[in-house]
């Protein structure tokens, strides 16, 4: 990258140079992870210079200072268009930026490069994009595989080192599923913790901003930056969150403030951090063990649980019966909310200009028919049905009742009671578990050719393990667990299988810390038993030296 001068602050220059160079390579470009590569906004060179000076002489704004962060293209930025991977917004330039983007920039991060996705977030494989499908980089042996969706572009940008961190959105698993398919970390925080202001709505009662990263430290730093003010202000005002909350009325302020306090405490108090890592009660929901689960995934799940038991945690079988219909309820709610949220795309106030139709009438329907993708149209139609006069009680309202059952299932198995319900109604459950450990996906990333034979309804089932946590708004973290050839003979190019840690509402900090701890233990014990190294660690080692 020519704009980067030779300087003493080699680490930052090298890092940025590396990411930009990687992004420009042909092999990376062919993966189609980006819709807008990097914003050539005016003053970008200047900003980089300033960051280099901060790195040389200090003080740095935060631990994210100078980091390059990718953004899913349904989150508004000022330097690039925000297309949502839809033809209807192809040239849409947002007049404002999202709260989460602003927050990261305040911390000195360069939020640039808009990543590819399923149109408006509707899909599980990032193939429903106006800009073409995203490809999984793990495509050795000639199989083009799904990158997962809908935040597939963000996941590929992170896994191929084009960005150390990327923002995604998670409505029913859109951050966790691609993270699992790409062997990286994907975190969906509690619903209503991060401001959605400037995030294009798909299903507003489910949408959450999520994070993707290659290491737990990067994940923690990014999550902290989204909740707290940069370094100099840390002691005086840790909760600037309140301001953002005003712009997003769905932020649950009382819980968000409590999470901010915990994050601040964990940041400044190492003793507290250690205390977060006691011996836990870990639940294994039996409904997550579906018949369709790939045997290699089940075997890694089992090995992981056994490793954690060896480490002194207690493992409990739990039952969450509503899991079995959570998926159907999710698709009723998501489609209904989408049909309402997408009503505003009529090609009048924004969108790209088009030729007049033969009729000479610029009708809303015609514009929408021309510019929306097939999957979007199908879901809008389903949503219109489930909201229509004769069907709403039996479908939409019924699904919301099922959603309540899903939430109460979780509340009944967790040790901590939900902060969203009254204390007298909450069930104090000393017998409950602290976390649930489950796989993130039931299958390994499917090949794109196998997906082309499936109907859209068939791909709904890929979200079966991620949707329940979304319906209940719980924090869930997908972590890559090393999987040896021995577990996985069929797909030797896949080194990692995604495991998901789910915690009680508002336990975001605990989920992050415990998951990192769990992963380290599992990897260590598996490695000892196999006598081999995790290839990801090799990767990280080679970056440091290269």
């Amino acid at each position: 990258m020519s704009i980067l001068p030779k300087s003493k602050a080699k680490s930052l220059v090298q890092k940025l140079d590396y990411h930009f160079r990687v992004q420009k390579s042909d092999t990376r470009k062919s993966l189609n992870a980006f819709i807008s590569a990097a914003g050539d906004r005016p003053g970008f060179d200047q900003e980089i210079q300033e960051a280099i000076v901060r790195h040389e002489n200090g003080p740095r704004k935060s631990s994210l200072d100078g980091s390059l962060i990718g953004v899913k293209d349904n989150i508004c930025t000022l330097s690039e268009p925000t297309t949502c991977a839809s033809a209807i917004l192809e040239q849409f330039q947002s007049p404002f930026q999202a709260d989460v983007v602003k927050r990261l920039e305040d911390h000195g991060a360069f939020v640039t490069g808009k990543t590819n996705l399923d149109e408006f977030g509707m899909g599980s494989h990032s193939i429903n994009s106006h800009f073409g499908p995203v490809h999984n980089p793990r495509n050795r042996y000639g199989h083009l595989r799904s990158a997962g969706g809908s935040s597939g572009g963000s996941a590929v940008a992170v896994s191929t080192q084009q960005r150390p961190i990327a923002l995604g959105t998670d409505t029913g698993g859109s951050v966790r599923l691609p993270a699992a398919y790409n062997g990286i970390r994907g975190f969906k925080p509690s619903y209503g913790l991060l401001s959605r202001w400037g995030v294009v709505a798909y299903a507003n009662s489910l949408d959450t901003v999520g994070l993707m990263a290659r290491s737990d430290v990067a994940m923690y730093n990014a999550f902290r930056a989204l909740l707290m003010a940069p370094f100099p202000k840390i002691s005086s005002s840790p909760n600037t969150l309140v301001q953002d909350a005003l712009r997003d009325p769905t932020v649950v302020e009382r819980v968000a403030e409590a999470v901010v306090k915990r994050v601040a405490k964990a940041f400044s108090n190492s003793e507290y951090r250690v205390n977060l890592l006691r011996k836990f009660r870990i639940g294994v929901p039996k409904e997550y063990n579906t018949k369709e689960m790939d045997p290699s995934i089940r075997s890694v799940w089992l090995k992981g649980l056994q490793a954690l038991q060896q480490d002194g945690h207690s493992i409990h079988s739990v039952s969450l019966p509503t899991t079995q219909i959570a998926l159907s309820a999710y698709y009723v709610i998501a489609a209904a909310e989408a049909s309402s949220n997408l009503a505003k795309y009529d090609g009048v106030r924004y969108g790209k200009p088009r030729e007049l139709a033969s009729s000479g009438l610029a009708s809303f329907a015609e514009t929408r028919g021309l510019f929306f993708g097939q999957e979007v149209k199908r879901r809008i139609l389903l949503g219109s049905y489930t909201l229509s006069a004769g069907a709403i009680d039996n479908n939409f309202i019924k699904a919301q009742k099922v959603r309540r059952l899903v939430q109460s299932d979780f509340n009944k198995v967790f040790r901590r009671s939900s902060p969203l319900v009254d204390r007298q109604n909450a069930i104090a459950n000393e017998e409950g578990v602290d976390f649930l450990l489950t796989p993130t996906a039931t299958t390994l990333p499917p090949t794109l050719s196998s997906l082309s034979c499936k109907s859209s309804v068939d791909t709904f089932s890929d979200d079966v393990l991620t949707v329940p946590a979304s319906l209940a708004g719980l924090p869930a973290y997908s972590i890559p667990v090393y999987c040896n050839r021995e577990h996985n003979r069929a797909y030797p190019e896949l080194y990692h299988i995604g495991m998901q840690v789910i915690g009680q509402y508002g336990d975001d900090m605990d989920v992050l810390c415990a998951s990192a701890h769990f992963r380290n233990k599992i990897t260590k014990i598996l490695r000892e038993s196999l006598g081999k190294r995790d290839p990801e660690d090799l990767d990280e080692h080679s970056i440091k030296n290269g």
Partner: protein
Amino acid sequence: MAARWMERGMLMARQRLHFTPSFTRLVRPYVGPAAKHVKDIELMLAEPSWSVNSLFTSHHSPATESQVSKKQLHHLLRLSALPLPANEAEEAKMLKDLESQLRFVQAIQRVDTDGVEPLVSLRDETEEATKESEVTVDTLKEDFAKETVTGIRGRIGRSDPAKKEEEEDWDALACAPKTVGRYIALDNKVSAP
């Protein structure tokens, strides 16, 4: 009209029959005792508890009768501001897609939800928070104080100069594909009546 509602009722009854009620009341959630041995964990995962395909069973079986009529489809398309099908083949495809989706999502009918409060959105449902979010005269006092009364009819105006500046500090027309002066323009041939 009455006939239409009758038809609707029949339709719903038929929808219910579509599913053999494999479980009407779900078992209670529970937490089991801690696994004592490595073998116990193996036992936990030994048997899959259900098949995701069960949600599709009715979706894959050929539909005996269609739930959605062509007329209904057209009505839904109009509600969705989407174009009507261009030809019969497209119409058939649309009906097929919608029906397979409906059969999949209607698995929720199998569950007994009597007396369950719908979860509309995730929000603070504690008594304290409910009270806090209640809007009373006191909450609005500040806003009432900003009201201005103008004209003979005593028209009430509400303006907050600070807010106004922030809200109007962007070009609302900048994103529109076509504008004329201060207006959004639409191409339209006016057809003769």
